[in-house]
């Protein structure tokens, strides 16, 4: 079912799709960042694709293992057609930003904030891109592979002081 989605995607955006695979039955397309929003809108609006539900958005950090360092991973589902698709968008460390998918699915709102908070990937055009799990004033991005697991950052702001 979803095989068709991959075919449709590659046919329409041949120059944007870098690779595809379906290991373990998960249809996956690696796409360029340039026309990401067009691709997402296409996936949502075409009646035979109809990816209406945003399932998950996260980032994989390939620190010193792969270039480019980050990979933004989207999981989409179609409630009407019952098929799934995974999209991966590689981004460089120096330019770790992708356009926000918030206008297409409001359901990626907090997922993008979380990805920004924990990995430091920015989402351009997000209406409220600020930390969500960590506190304001937290330094660094804890899920990056170069953030040490035993590092401690106590909250030192005093009561009444503006953090």
């Amino acid at each position, binding site marked *: 079912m979803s095989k068709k989605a991959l075919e449709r995607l590659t046919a329409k955006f041949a120059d944007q799709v870098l690779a595809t695979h379906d290991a*373990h039955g*998960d249809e996956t397309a690696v796409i360029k960042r340039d026309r990401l929003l067009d691709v997402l809108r296409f996936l949502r609006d075409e009646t035979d694709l109809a990816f209406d539900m*945003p399932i*998950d958005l996260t980032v*994989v950090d390939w620190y010193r293992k792969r270039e480019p360092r980050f990979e933004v991973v989207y*999981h989409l589902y179609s409630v009407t057609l019952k098929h799934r698709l995974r999209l991966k968008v590689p981004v460089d460390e120096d330019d770790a930003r992708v356009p926000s998918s918030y206008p297409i*699915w409001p359901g990626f709102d907090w997922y993008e904030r979380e990805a920004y908070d924990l990995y430091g990937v920015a989402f351009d055009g997000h209406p409220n891109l600020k930390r969500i799990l960590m506190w304001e004033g937290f330094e660094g991005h804890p899920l990056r592979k170069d953030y040490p697991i035993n590092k401690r950052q106590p909250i030192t702001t005093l009561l009444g002081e503006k953090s």
Partner: protein
Amino acid sequence: MAEILLETEGGDLDSVPMNVQMGPSHPAMHGTIKMRLRLDGEIVARTDVEVGYLHRGFEKSCENVTWTQVMPYTDRLNYVSPLCNNVGYCMAVEKLLGIRATDRCEYIRMIMAETSRIGDHMTCVGASAMELGGFTAFLYAIEVREEIWRVIETVTGARLTHSYCRIGGLKDDLPPDFGASWRSIRKKIRTLIDDIHALLDKNRIFLDRMIDVGVISADRAVSYGFTGPCLRSTGVDYDVRKAAPYMKYDRMEFEVPIGSRGDNYDRYLVRMEEIEQSLRIIDQCLAQIEPGPINVDDGRLVLPEKDDVYGSIEGTIAHFKIIMEGIRVPPGEVYSYTEAGNGELGFYLVSTGEGRPYKCRVRPPCWSFMQALHEMLEGYQVADIVPTFGSVNMIGGECDR
């Protein structure tokens, strides 16, 4: 407060908006969560939901332990139904390994996941009722949960954090008298559920507080990524167990209850009906389950018997390697999803072929509801926050990870 009064001297007091901080520690809040509210009289004009107070670095911790050692962390995601998380995680790793658990193991996992689901729904319904003054219904619901926990304890040895599943199998088989003890508590649960229905279904106060409160439309729910009872209450019949049957759900006869209005009352009814369906599924599992091995026959994944460990050098080595180095999972990525108490619980795992997960992402169903919670609160009264927040069943451990 004094300043506000001064400002409006001679004017209309109600017209001044007031900012209120609700939480993070508040008697009516199930988890530690903060809401910043702008009130226009009794009406909630704007809401800003803040989460993260229970964040403990689930993913970071998982990346630094072996695949097997992740199990106790999954217990603490949705701590009201930990077995659903255990099963979800094991299935994800098994998908990446390219193996499938044995038939008996899958039936036991289903039985345990469904009992947990009953406990989860009962906790949600009971707590919601209590917050609206229905303390009797709460006690009945908690008694159901207590029975469930008692039977789970006989199987897993723990009441709350079970860590019952293993990659490729289970910690233990069911106790021999499980069928009998289930039948006896099933009868009890049935009566208690009927009592809860009798207490709540036509209760004027309960209905007034629940019907047409906290409404969300099907379209909005889908575009926000709702799953589970919250999505089904809007009339969308998406249930992972039906849409993409895993384990033995394709052999089960059960219905997916849906609502129509997407309000608190529909969420309550959907949960109550799902309990009935879970009971049906457990009955069918117990009828179909057959004796057999509970672990896959693969020495690289499953710990050897204790006799072997102490009696043979191969057993000692195998035990040592699994414990110290961890199971080797082939490189790759996988997204595996199951229906947990609150909806689609997904695990996105990335392996580089080492003994530890390179990434262990969990997709918590609560996360999607919480970002849309403001839409379900704005325009209603302050008092409506309590039943609405109760009926989406946010679980801090799962939401904040």
